């Protein structure tokens, strides 16, 4: 079964990190990715640009509107995701708990809907 692990953290803190710390975090992410690739849990992942690069699109009454910024203003922002394959929710939680994001922010584990199942 597939699970999407959404990594939320306070993006304003990243630019303030000393280079050594930022490198350490990056190293941990690479290590994590490498490990779950080997273990067969990895399906895909991406890091996202900060929410200042976001645009929200809506069509209301046939009219397109675009707004600058994310859909909702929150204290922690979506900064990236991992799509993983796991036996069940507990295994997905185990994988997510190894993600560095669980320590500097939070990881939301969402089961992917399986459309082939009733």
């Amino acid at each position: 079964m597939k699970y999407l692990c959404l990594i939320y953290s306070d993006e304003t803190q990243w630019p303030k990190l000393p280079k050594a710390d930022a490198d350490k975090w990056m190293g941990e992410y690479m290590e994590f990715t490498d490990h779950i690739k080997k273990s067969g849990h990895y399906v895909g992942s991406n890091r996202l640009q900060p929410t200042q690069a976001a645009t929200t699109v809506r069509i209301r009454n046939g009219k397109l509107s675009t707004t600058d910024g994310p859909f909702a203003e929150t204290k922690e922002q979506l900064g990236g995701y991992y799509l993983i394959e796991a036996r069940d929710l507990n295994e997905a939680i185990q994988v997510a708990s190894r993600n560095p994001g669980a320590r500097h922010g939070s990881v939301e584990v969402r089961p992917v809907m399986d459309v082939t199942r009733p």
Partner: protein
Amino acid sequence: MSEEAARRVREMVDAVYRSDSRRVLATLIRLLGDFDLAEEALHDAFTAAVERWPRDGVPANPRAWLVSAGRFKAIDAMRRRARFDASLEEIARRFDTETSDPTGRDEESVEDDRLRLIFTCCHPALPPDAQIALTLREVCGLTTEEIARAFLTGPPTVAQRIVRAKAKIRDARIPYEVPVRGDLPGRLDTVLHVIYLVFNEGYSASAGSSLTRPDLSGEAIRLGRLLIDLLAEPEALGLLSLMLLHESRRTARTSPAGELVLLGDQDRSLWNRELIAEGSALVQRALSSRRFGPYTLQAAIAAVHAEAPAAGATDWAQIVGLYDVLARADPSPVVELNRAAAVAMRDGPLAGLTLIDGILARGDLADYYLAHSARADLCRRLGRTTDARASYERALRLTQQDPERRFLERRLGELPD
């Protein structure tokens, strides 16, 4: 290697996963001292098997290979993490030296590991919900989602119970061991109770539209069989016997339309004779030990029913006698109620009704629907229609199960005005 051969190896890995993954997990938990670490190691070991077996051939002892690979992978993972957390290096070194020969252990200690796993999952320090969830996941290999479906709850609720239980095992240092002889009876009770709850949830689901959930009963019976293979204590035999004897009546217990059929009205040709024979043999073994308890006694009662060729030929005197012993071994209002129902069959409805009214007058079982439906039934047979109606209505207010509700409504409808 040809594609065909590679497919055969993959099938072999799948088969080993089904037959042995729980054994490998049980041993890895002992070697690594941590559920999460062991589960990760188990996963990594099977990943390695998928990679290496097609290339190197299937090892002579796949289980030992998997334990060894899992242990190696776990130490490897520790070392990797130690780059960010120096304290892990020490732990990794300790694992490397202390657990150096996991494959040298004999078959018996591997079986001990399975028993350790059962006793740890059913540790009395864990809440009952967590004992059940952990046992079904770690011992039976069910997924979180399957457990949630069986208990009509959400996967996050089950997942959280399991996460918390593992944290408690780790933080409270719940030991991974089979209890010593002196503690065994009490601890075995908890294990048997967990198995019994799983069976009951499958046999008479506490809520919902369907009367039974056979998958859960099947898991409970599998657990019961595993337990007696590992530890043939009389009460473990008794519980397995009880489950098999109940299971033997599953088909007869509901009509084709999904309606509840009481024991006395069941078509006995639908009873599963093989399960009855196995259950009866087990209860004989348990009884002959002279160290039996409540499960064995309940199984013995179920066996008397199973042996009666027709409801009218039931040996009610023997059943009342067994309830007398059960009421001494494990006194409870529910046992008294069942005994009262048997007395009613032996001595007539009035004798049974007097006993039930005695229980209810004490304030016991006021919210137990079966007490009121049994009372209603006896009143009906005595022609006390008003009393019967009041008790059926009371029972109806107390049950959440659709087939049981329909049964009571049918009985109410059949009462004369």
